[in-house]
């Protein structure tokens, strides 16, 4: 790939980095990344990956922008209310960086479409707000041997883990989805807006590290932080032999759509009917 003068200027701060350089930037420009969810986490992830020049960004979300999203979903602006999130996100990505090819999927990731969608990408980023899809992403990526970044935020806390085939997966840590309504999601419990940026940019950095091969990924380590104390911890983990999807006797061999918390579904319906 030959960079134009303009591209050399655009990506000069990457190219200057000894660990990245022209070669690393080429890897970024050739990278294909799928972002699941164009919300609190998906917004900063998409903005930074677009700015970095990731060649193809797929973004999947079935929702429309709601006024209550704007407190943290920084890729959506006030005039975007009621617009499909993936369209709003695509517009901003194209404005930031016309080099990026955006593939917008205005739908939910499901057991039926997950494997087909993720197969076209080098890396998958979980920016979803609910456990059924978090487990779906994990299972699909483990089955398809696709690396991904898990991210979760709640109130003042965040956690993230990077998976590569052979390292601890989300199910190694969290065996199976909690019963619907057992654990609050952000739409029920609230979240400090900036937490989404803190965690999303960590996930974006992991993507860029993966694409360029620079540094040590958050594999076999769960990073957690609390914004009230600003304490960060990494908890070392390893693949769990009893893991239902990647352990030695897997019980999860196909994909399933787990039941969603009832109030989440209702709030989605409300949004769609607006």
């Amino acid at each position, binding site marked *: 790939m030959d960079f134009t003068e303009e591209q050399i200027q655009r990506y000069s701060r990457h190219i200057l980095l000894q660990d990245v350089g022209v070669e690393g930037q080429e890897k970024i420009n050739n990278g294909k990344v799928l972002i699941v969810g164009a919300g609190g986490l998906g917004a900063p992830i998409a903005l930074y990956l677009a700015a970095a020049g990731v060649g193809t960004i797929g973004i999947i979300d079935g929702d429309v922008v709601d006024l209550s*999203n704007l407190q943290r979903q920084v890729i959506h602006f006030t005039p975007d209310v009621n617009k499909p999130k993936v369209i709003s996100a695509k517009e901003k990505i194209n404005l930031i960086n016309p080099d990026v090819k955006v593939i917008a999927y205005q739908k939910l990731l499901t057991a039926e479409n997950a494997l087909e969608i993720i197969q076209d990408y080098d890396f998958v980023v979980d920016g979803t707000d*609910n456990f059924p899809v978090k487990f779906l992403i994990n299972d699909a990526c483990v089955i398809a041997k696709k690396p991904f970044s898990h991210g979760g935020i709640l109130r003042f*806390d965040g956690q993230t883990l990077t998976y590569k085939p052979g390292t601890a997966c989300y199910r190694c*840590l969290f065996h199976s989805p909690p019963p619907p309504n057992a654990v609050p999601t*952000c739409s029920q419990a609230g979240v400090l807006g900036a937490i989404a940026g803190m965690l999303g940019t960590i996930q974006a950095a992991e993507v860029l590290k993966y694409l360029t091969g620079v540094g040590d990924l958050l594999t076999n380590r769960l990073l957690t932080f609390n914004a009230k104390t600003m304490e960060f911890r990494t908890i070392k983990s390893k693949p769990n032999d009893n893991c239902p999807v990647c352990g030695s006797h897997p019980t999860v061999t196909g994909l399933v759509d787990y039941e969603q918390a009832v109030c989440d579904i209702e709030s989605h319906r409300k949004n769609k009917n607006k």
Partner: protein
Amino acid sequence: MSKISVNGKAQEVERPISITELIKLNNVAQPEMVSIQLNGQFVNRDDFDNTQVAEGDELDFLYFMGGGSF
């Protein structure tokens, strides 16, 4: 008195206790929703009652976090 560590912080327990008791002692709001790692190994939920915590053990309580998108 046994010295253990929970989420990187030192804690003392008066007598050998099970993981189930330790979860109670730490006032975990939803015990059924916590994953436990003991010295770097995940403990099956079914074994929380019969796994004893001893001097020097390092435990991590991991909680579900759902948020992100909507």
